[in-house]
C-alpha cells in the first residue's frame, strides 16, 4: 500500500534535495504534490486540507533554519505530521477490569468484520491466553453465522450456539449471559454489515450497544475505501460512539488513505490492521510504521517481526551448528527458501523493504516473483538425497534430469547451483561477524536505505546471508533482526542469479 504515494513524495523531495535552501514556493510546490498524492491515495478532502495546512505552517518556518538540510527537514515534518494524524502511539484494545470484556464489531458489508472477529479471537486466545467466545448477530447475510462458527472452531474458541428466530439484540443479550455464566474473558460480537444511511439498522446497532455495554466498539473498515470513508466513519461514530478502528486488507496494494481520513474525522485510534488471509494475520496498527512506509522508509520493523515469528528456534540452531562446521548444503538452502515463503513470499517482503517502492516495476520486469522461488524449490526437490548433500555430483546429465523433473531448464538449474555456491561462500566469510555493526547499519539505513536499495537489485541470498550471519549464529530475536538488518542496509544486491545473469 502507499507505494505510489511514497514514490510521489520521493519525487517531490528529490526535487527539493537538489536545491540549497527551502523557499516558500518550494514548500508550496511540495505541498501541491503532497495534496495530489494524498488525494490519489484516497485520503478524504477534509483530511488532506488539515494535513497540508499543518505541514505548511511548520515547513515555512523551517526555511530560515540553515543548520539542517531543508529537504530532510520537510521529510521530517511531513513524517511527524503523518504520524500525528494517524494517531501518535499505537493504541491497545480496551479490556474490562471485570470479565467478560465485550467487543462489538461494526461496519459496512464486506469490510471484513467476520474474518477480523475470528482473527481477534485467535489473538486473544493464543497471545493473551484468554477464554474467548464468538457470537454472530448477523441474521441477514446467508451463512454468516456458519462462517463465524467455522472460524471459531479453527481458532479453538467458544462459539455461541444458534437459536432460530432471535433478533440480533436478543442474541447479544443471550451471548452476554452465556459469557458471564461460563466465565469467558472476552466476548466478541460480530454484527451484520450495514449501510451508515440505513436508520433502522443503525438503531439496531445502538440497541445492541445498550444491551451489552461493550468495552470496545470497533469499526471495521476496508483500507481500499475511497472518499466515503469519512461519511461512513462519521455516521458510525455518531450512532454508536466508535472506540477504535480495525483496518482490513492492509496487505493489498491500496494506498490506504482511508486510514488518515477516518482517523481525522472520528479522532478514534486505529487499533488493528488485517494483513492477510490467514487467521493470525492481524497486527497492532502502528502509525509510525505506516508513516514510514508512506515516506519510502520501508516497514523494516514488520519484516523483522515477521522473521522472528516465522523462523523456528531449533531450525536456526541446527543451521548455526552446521555453519560452524562449514557445512551448508542444498537441504539448508531449501529450508531458507521455505522460510522466505512462510514470511509471506517475496511480495510480502518487498512491500516492507526500504526503497523498494520505486523499484517494483523493475523487479516485475525482471520476472522476480514468488513463482521464481517456487521454481527454485522444485529444482531442489528434483535432486536426489545424495545430490542435495554434495552438489559436486551435479554433472550435465544429472542437471538435465533435474531440469526435466522440475519442469525447468538446465539454465535454471545452473543458475540455482551458482546461487547456492555464492551463498555458501558468503556464509563462510560472514560466519564470524557479530550483529552489532549490522544493527547500526540497519538503523542508519532506514532513510538512506532507499538509495542503497535503488542501486542493486534485491537479493534473496543476501537476505539469507543476513539470517546466516547475525541470525542463526546468535539464535532468535535480536540476532535475527541484526542479520536481516545487515542485508537490508547493504541494499540487497542482485536477487538470486537472475537479474545479475541478465546483466551479464
Amino acid at each position, binding site marked *: 500500500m502507499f507505494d505510489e504515494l511514497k514514490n510521489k513524495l520521493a519525487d517531490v523531495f528529490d526535487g527539493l534535495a537538489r536545491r540549497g535552501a527551502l523557499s516558500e514556493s518550494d514548500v508550496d510546490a511540495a505541498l501541491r504534490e503532497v495534496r495530489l498524492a494524498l488525494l490519489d491515495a484516497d485520503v478524504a478532502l477534509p483530511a488532506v486540507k488539515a494535513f497540508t495546512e499543518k505541514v505548511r505552517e511548520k515547513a515555512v518556518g523551517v526555511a530560515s533554519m540553515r543548520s539542517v538540510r531543508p529537504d530532510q527537514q520537510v521529510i521530517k515534518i511531513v513524517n511527524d505530521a503523518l504520524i500525528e494524524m494517524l494517531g501518535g502511539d499505537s493504541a491497545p484494545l480496551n479490556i474490562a477490569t471485570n470479565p467478560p470484556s465485550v467487543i462489538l464489531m461494526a461496519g*459496512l*458489508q*464486506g469490510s471484513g468484520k467476520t474474518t477480523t472477529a475470528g482473527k481477534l479471537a485467535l489473538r486473544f486466545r493464543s497471545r493473551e491466553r484468554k477464554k474467548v467466545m464468538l457470537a454472530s448477530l448477523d441474521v441477514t447475510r446467508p451463512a454468516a453465522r456458519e*462462517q463465524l462458527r467455522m472460524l471459531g472452531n479453527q481458532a479453538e474458541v467458544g462459539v455461541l450456539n444458534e437459536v432460530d428466530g432471535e433478533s440480533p439484540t436478543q442474541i447479544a443479550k443471550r451471548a452476554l449471559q452465556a459469557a458471564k455464566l461460563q466465565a469467558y474473558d472476552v466476548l466478541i460480537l460480530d454484527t451484520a454489515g450495514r*449501510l451508515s444511511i440505513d436508520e433502522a439498522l443503525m438503531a439496531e446497532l445502538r440497541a445492541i450497544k445498550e444491551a451489552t455495554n461493550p468495552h470496545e466498539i470497533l469499526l471495521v473498515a476496508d483500507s481500499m475505501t475511497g*472518499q466515503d470513508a469519512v*461519511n461512513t466513519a462519521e455516521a458510525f461514530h455518531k450512532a454508536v460512539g466508535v472506540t477504535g478502528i480495525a483496518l*482490513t486488507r492492509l496487505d493489498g496494494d491500496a494506498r490506504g488513505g482511508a486510514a488518515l481520513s477516518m482517523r481525522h474525522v472520528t479522532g478514534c485510534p486505529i487499533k488493528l490492521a488485517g494483513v492477510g*488471509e490467514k487467521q493470525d494475520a492481524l497486527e497492532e496498527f502502528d502509525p509510525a510504521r505506516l508513516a514510514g512506509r508512506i515516506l519510502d522508509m520501508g516497514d523494516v520493523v514488520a519484516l523483522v517481526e515477521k522473521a522472528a515469528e516465522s523462523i523456528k528456534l531449533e531450525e536456526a540452531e541446527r543451521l548455526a551448528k552446521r555453519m560452524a562446521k562449514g557445512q551448508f548444503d542444498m537441504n539448508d538452502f531449501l529450508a531458507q527458501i521455505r522460510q522466505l515463503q512462510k514470511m509471506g513470499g517475496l511480495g510480502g517482503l518487498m512491500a516492507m523493504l526500504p526503497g523498494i517502492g520505486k523499484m517494483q516495476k523493475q523487479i516485475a520486469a525482471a520476472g522476480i516473483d514468488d513463482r521464481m522461488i517456487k521454481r527454485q524449490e522444485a529444482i531442489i526437490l528434483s535432486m536426489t538425497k545424495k545430490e542435495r548433500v554434495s552438489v559436486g555430483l551435479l554433472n550435465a546429465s544429472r542437471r538435465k534430469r533435474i531440469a526435466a523433473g522440475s519442469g525447468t531448464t538446465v539454465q535454471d538449474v545452473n543458475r540455482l547451483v551458482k546461487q547456492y555456491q555464492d551463498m555458501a561462500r558468503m556464509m563462510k566469510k560472514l560466519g564470524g561477524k557479530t550483529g552489532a555493526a549490522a544493527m547500526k547499519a540497519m538503523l542508519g539505513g532506514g532513510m538512506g536505505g532507499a538509495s542503497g536499495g535503488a542501486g542493486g537489485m534485491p537479493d534473496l541470498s543476501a537476505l539469507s546471508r543476513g539470517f546466516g550471519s547475525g541470525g542463526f549464529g546468535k539464535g532468535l530475536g535480536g540476532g535475527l533482526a541484526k542479520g536481516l538488518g545487515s542485508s537490508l542496509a547493504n541494499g540487497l544486491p542482485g536477487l538470486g542469479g537472475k537479474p545479475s545473469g541478465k546483466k551479464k
Partner: protein
Amino acid sequence: MNWFKKLKDGLSKSSKKVSESLASLPSLSALIGKSKLDAASLEEVEDALIAADLGTASAIRLATALKSHKFDGPVDADSIALALADGLEGILKPVAKPLEIDLANRPHVVLLVGVNGSGKTTTAGKLAQNWTAAGKTVLLAAGDTFRAAAVEQLQIWGDRTGTKVIADATGGDAAALAYRAMTRAIEEQADVLIIDTAGRLQNRSELMEELAKIVRVIRKLDDTAPHDSVIVLDGTVGQNALSQVKAFSAVADVSGMIVTKLDGSAKGGVVVALAEEFGLPVHAVGVGEGADDLQPFAADEFAKALAGVDRDDSGWAG
C-alpha cells in the same frame, strides 16, 4: 423500476454533496450574470468531484472541460450540475451495457472475480435469480473454496432461487471444481453457468495464479469461455479500483464490471475514472441485499445522480 428509486435514494445522499457544495461556492455570487466559470469556482467543482471518488485526473479533466463550457443563462449551481451531468454521461454512455446471455454458447459461462468482500457471492445469487426468473436454466459453481462458509452462502442463494449449485467442501481445489461444473453444465445443456470465485487481493501473485488456472481449465472444455469475465467492484472503493481492474484483466481477461453497494453513501465515482481508463462495460449495479436488487447500469441516471441534478425533472421518478 424500484432500482432507480434505490439508487436515487442512495446516491442522493452523496450527490447532494456535489450539488450542495456547488450551491455553496463562495465565489458563485460573483459569477451571477457571467457565462463562464472563474478559477476559484472551478477548483471547488474539482474538489466536489474528487470527493465523489472520481480521482484527481478525471476530476481535473471534467472541471477543465467546464471552463470552456458556454452556459446559456447565468452560471449557478444548477447549470453547473447540468453541464457536469452532460460531461459524465458522455463518458459513461459508451460503457453502459447489460450482461446478455448468448444461448448459442450453452452454457454461457460467467466468471465472477474480484477482491475480498466486494460482493461476488451475493452477485452470483442475484444473477441466478434474474436469469432463472427469465426462464433460463442456470447452474451455480461455488468456486470460493477458501473462505469459511462461502460454499454454504452460495448454497443458500441456490435454494432461494431454485438453482443447482455445484460445490466441494471448503478447502478443495477451485480449478477442479470449475472443471467439474463446466462438465456438468455442458452435459445438462444449461443456458448459463455462473462461477463464483474466492476473493483475492490483486497483488498476491500466488492467488492470481490460481485464478489464471481456473480460466485455463475452463478453456480446456470451451475455448471461448468464460464468455463474460466480470469483476465485481465494491461501490465504496477508491482509486485502488484501477489497480484491481488492471490486475484482474491481466489474469482473467475481464470483459466487464458490476458495481455493488451503491445504495449507501458511497458515490461510486471511480466508475468514471474506470470508464476513461479502460472503457470496459459496466453491466449492472447492486443496490441492496435482496435477490432483485441487481439492476442494469443506466448511464444517464448515474450521471445525473452523481452531478446532483435535480431529479424531479430527470424523469426517473417512475
